[in-house]
């Protein structure tokens, strides 16, 4: 049964994308990767801003690209996205901190400071990923 369809028939609830059950390779909850599931945790976000913040950068990019496409034609967002993709590949191994210098320069993040640079800096995080597992995941072996 499609759980998404069930949820949208609940009264007083708005279907919230991005909070659905994390389905793994076989169509069920991937307990190994995303932990135990709980309906209450997944139905509603824990804070009003949680979803909008998670998708903020994506939505900004989509908006900017569509504006660019309307003004300058399809070639402009196409070329930019090609450059972003190339810059995103210049990285260290997944469990190490990479500087994302080229990507930041392209996106203009080198000339602005926001809460992403001050709070919760990933370079200062207390947990390190398990190196073998992370490389296997990145190479698609897992």
């Amino acid at each position, binding site marked *: 049964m499609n759980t998404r369809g069930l949820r949208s028939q609940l009264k007083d609830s708005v279907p919230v994308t991005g909070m659905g059950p994390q389905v793994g390779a076989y169509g069920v909850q991937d307990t*190994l990767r*995303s932990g135990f599931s709980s309906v209450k945790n997944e139905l509603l976000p824990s804070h*009003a*801003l949680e979803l*909008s913040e998670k998708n903020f950068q994506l939505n900004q990019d989509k908006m900017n690209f569509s504006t660019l496409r309307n003004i300058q034609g399809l070639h402009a967002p196409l070329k930019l996205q090609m450059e972003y993709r190339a810059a995103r590949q210049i990285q260290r191994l997944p469990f190490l901190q990479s500087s994302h210098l080229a990507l930041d320069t392209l996106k203009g993040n080198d000339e602005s*400071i*926001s*809460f992403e640079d001050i*709070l919760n800096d*990933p370079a200062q995080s207390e947990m390190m990923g398990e190196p073998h597992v992370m490389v296997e995941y990145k190479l698609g072996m897992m």
Partner: protein
Amino acid sequence: MATLSVCQTQLGGFSFENCKRNAVLEAEVTKLGCRMPAARKTGTTIVGVVFKDGIVLGADTRATEGMIVADKNCSKIHYISPNIYCCGAGTAADTEMSTQIISSNLELHSLSTGRLPRVATANRMLKQMLFRYQGHIGAALVLGGMDCNGPHLYSIYPHGSTDKLPYVTMGSGSLAAMAVFEDRYKQDMEEEDAKRLVRDAIAAGIFNDLGSGSNIDLCVITKGRVDYLRPHDMANKKGVRTGNYKYKRGTTGVLTKAETKLVLEVVEETVQTMDTS
């Protein structure tokens, strides 16, 4: 949880991990009859006025934490750029961090353009940031400065709306201060008149609002000159005791005197040099 960090890249910025835990804790605490600690607010009177050659910004200096005065002399007029200053009301940490972030961004922006930053740029940056967080950042600001197009004054609300006006007031004492402005504001005032008007408006907020108090700070921004007058006026000086309640020597008569010598012998003597430079 270590496996979770494999699949999702670590992002900076706000983390909402503890929101559900906090909600549960708050429910538990209210069941016991206590209250969660309140954030420190500036419950304030801040004003700004445009006069003939520039801007005068004014603020009181009291920071409250619930019903207690947390800081008797805090500084609410924040630096944004050499020609732009911003007064902040609302949650103290939010105004502090927002103005610092915007100040850094404006500095980078002005280095990139090679020009003095404009007040409209600071206004646009602040309103876009506050709207992004939908009012959860409780910062109500009065932004004023002098740029190539003349003096500008904006008021910015926590949800991201802004107003460009010749005189603005914000904070819990804003109604008292606005009453003074509505009575005595004139266009193209002189600097001394503008300073006196702002001083009176803040004094009205201080004496009629519980959330504002202590001294009056002023900031006068004109072309090429900024006067940061802190404190401009100490409206609430702590009183001096009128009487001296110490007894004079000889008030009590001496009946007898007995002297006992304490015998001490020197066991060890050490010399430690002190760096008095």
